[in-house]
């Protein structure tokens, strides 16, 4: 084994980890001398510089491929996920200057970076020991990040709920993986697959499969494992919620795809209409149908925008599961594209919600009233993000959803296949328009209430403006010119 090659290949993760330590040290050294706003800017600038460094490295160096006997697989596709994760972390970091939620700035930024390291390793891990370690690195950092506002009792309770349910889910995952190891004698997913295929439907294998689906289902927040999501999205500090909604969801989905397609390709089963066969497809099919239904219907009655975004996120996880169920490279490419566009839009929506929350004291729908008069730029960005989440053309959300549904429809292999699930998803997408347009109606049609400083424009930091504008432009561009990225992803995953 060549340790030099491993160190070289993991340089982006190492850059982020070293930046985290540097930020901790810098903030501790400067805490007495600088004021809190200056420290926020300095720490975030250092964190963003680290992310940029990792991005540049990943763009410049060729992806190293399989490493350490297949422990890590850093191919083009997982590098794409890692780059997207670095971008998402940068955006969340910049949003945290605006919220200025704590005085423990060094710790906050360092934990954000460490969570990103964990998520990036999750995207490349192929060995179950590394899968578990990287997943826990990301999760433990996120639990702590969710609890950063120690004066907010609601936030702490959401963090405790997140921690207890997340801890249970990782116990399920570890139990499932231990059974997989016992059945196959291998810890690497790709080597495990042929040995598991020979076993057929062993009872222990069924237990293992179900445990792994439960464990990963918690992380991607699909019904019935979604209970933590609304509370964390609503009550956790805003940048944490943005990272949980975007980066954590993306990396967990990529891990789920790898587990299902590389670990159990022979155990897929079928989830066709009247053609069910045992395997992971029916499990995911049920979870997808329930998530799409429950997420969209419960979002209709929410009055808090962050909670609304949480239920819409549950529905989006359901849509993304359709692409996983396609079970081929096209479906995987569609899911990765869909989740990256979703993540950009959701971080943007959280950013706008954060500014509204800081200026008007809440994130209820009424607080968005008259946003158009207060800040045309914010309102325009919100317009783009919300319509992309709703999946209207020509925005990126539409292309992503279309690619996912097309992949699921094409994978049926004769007969009706997954058409029933696609029809259900399309119907529910129409329902979802109602609550998305509710938010826009408040922002554009309603007048600002007199009591809340009606005509006064809201102050928005220039850095936040740049990030929100950049995210909106990216969403529009990815929607208008999707071909390049999508076909590149298909080629990267097909090889």
């Amino acid at each position, binding site marked *: 084994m060549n340790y030099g090659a491993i160190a070289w290949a993991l340089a982006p993760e190492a850059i982020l980890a070293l930046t985290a330590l540097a930020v901790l040290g810098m903030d501790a050294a400067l805490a007495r001398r600088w004021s809190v706003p200056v420290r926020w800017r300095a720490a975030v600038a250092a964190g963003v510089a680290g992310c940029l460094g990792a991005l540049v490295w990943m763009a410049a160096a060729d992806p190293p491929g399989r490493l350490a006997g297949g422990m890590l697989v850093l191919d083009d596709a997982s590098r794409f996920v890692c780059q997207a994760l670095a971008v998402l972390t940068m955006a969340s970091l910049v949003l945290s200057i605006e919220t200025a939620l704590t005085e423990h700035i060094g710790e906050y930024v360092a934990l954000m970076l460490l969570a990103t390291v964990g998520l990036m390793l999750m995207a490349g891990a192929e060995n179950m*020991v590394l899968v578990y370690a990287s997943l826990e690195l990301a999760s433990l950092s996120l*639990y702590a990040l969710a609890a950063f506002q*120690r004066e907010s009792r609601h936030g702490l309770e*959401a963090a405790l709920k997140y*921690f*207890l349910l997340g801890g249970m889910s990782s116990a*399920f995952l570890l139990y499932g993986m231990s059974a997989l190891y*016992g059945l196959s004698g291998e810890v690497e997913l790709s080597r495990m697959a042929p040995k598991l295929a020979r076993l057929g439907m062993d009872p222990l294998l069924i237990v293992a499969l179900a445990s792994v689906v439960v464990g990963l289902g918690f992380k991607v927040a699909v019904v019935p494992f979604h209970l933590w999501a*609304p509370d964390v999205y609503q009550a956790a500090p805003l940048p944490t919620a943005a990272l949980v909604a975007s980066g954590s969801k993306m990396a967990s989905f990529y891990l789920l795809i790898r587990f299902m397609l590389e670990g159990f390709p022979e155990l897929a089963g079928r989830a066709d209409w009247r053609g069910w066969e045992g395997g992971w497809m029916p499990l995911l099919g049920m979870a997808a149908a329930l998530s799409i239904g429950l997420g969209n219907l419960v979002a209709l009655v929410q009055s808090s925008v962050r909670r609304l975004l949480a239920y819409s996120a549950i529905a989006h996880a359901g849509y993304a599961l359709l692409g996983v169920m396609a079970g081929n490279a096209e479906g995987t490419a569609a899911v990765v594209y869909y989740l990256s566009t979703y993540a950009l839009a959701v971080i943007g929506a959280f950013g706008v919600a954060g500014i509204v929350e800081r200026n008007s004291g809440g994130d209820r729908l009424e607080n968005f009233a008259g946003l158009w008069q207060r800040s045309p730029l914010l309102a325009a960005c919100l317009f783009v993000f919300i319509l992309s989440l709703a999946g209207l053309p020509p925005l990126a959300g539409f292309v992503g959803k279309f690619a996912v549904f097309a992949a699921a429809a094409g994978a049926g292999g004769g007969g009706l296949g997954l058409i029933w699930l696609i029809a259900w998803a399309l119907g529910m997408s129409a329902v979802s328009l109602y609550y998305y347009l509710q938010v826009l109606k408040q922002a554009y049609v309603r007048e600002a209430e007199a009591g809340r400083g009606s005509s006064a424009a809201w102050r928005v930091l220039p850095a936040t403006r740049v990030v929100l504008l950049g995210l909106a432009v990216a969403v529009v561009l990815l929607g208008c010119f999707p071909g390049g990225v999508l076909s590149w992803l298909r080629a990267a995953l097909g090889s």
Partner: protein
Amino acid sequence: MITAHHYLAVAAMLFGIGLAGALTRRNSILVLMSIELMLNAANLNLVAFGRQAGWEQGSQAALWVMCAIAIAAAESGVGLALILAIYRHRRSAHLDESPPLKG
């Protein structure tokens, strides 16, 4: 003669006890302990399988268990810190004394 199946049965029982405790207990510290039981059930599985596979093959499992124990320790550290922070607010570690967060 004790075979791998005996270990697996004990591990499955431990996992079940842990899951039942995690779902029914109202005290957050007891829930945390139940989660640790579930993790240890998985560790016991791994040790049993590693022993069955022999020294050469089973060393992977031994390493994995070491990692898992270290991670579980970190996890309970984070968990106890969280419980302590909430205790400062409401002087109790019970999960249902405050109006619960809406599902």
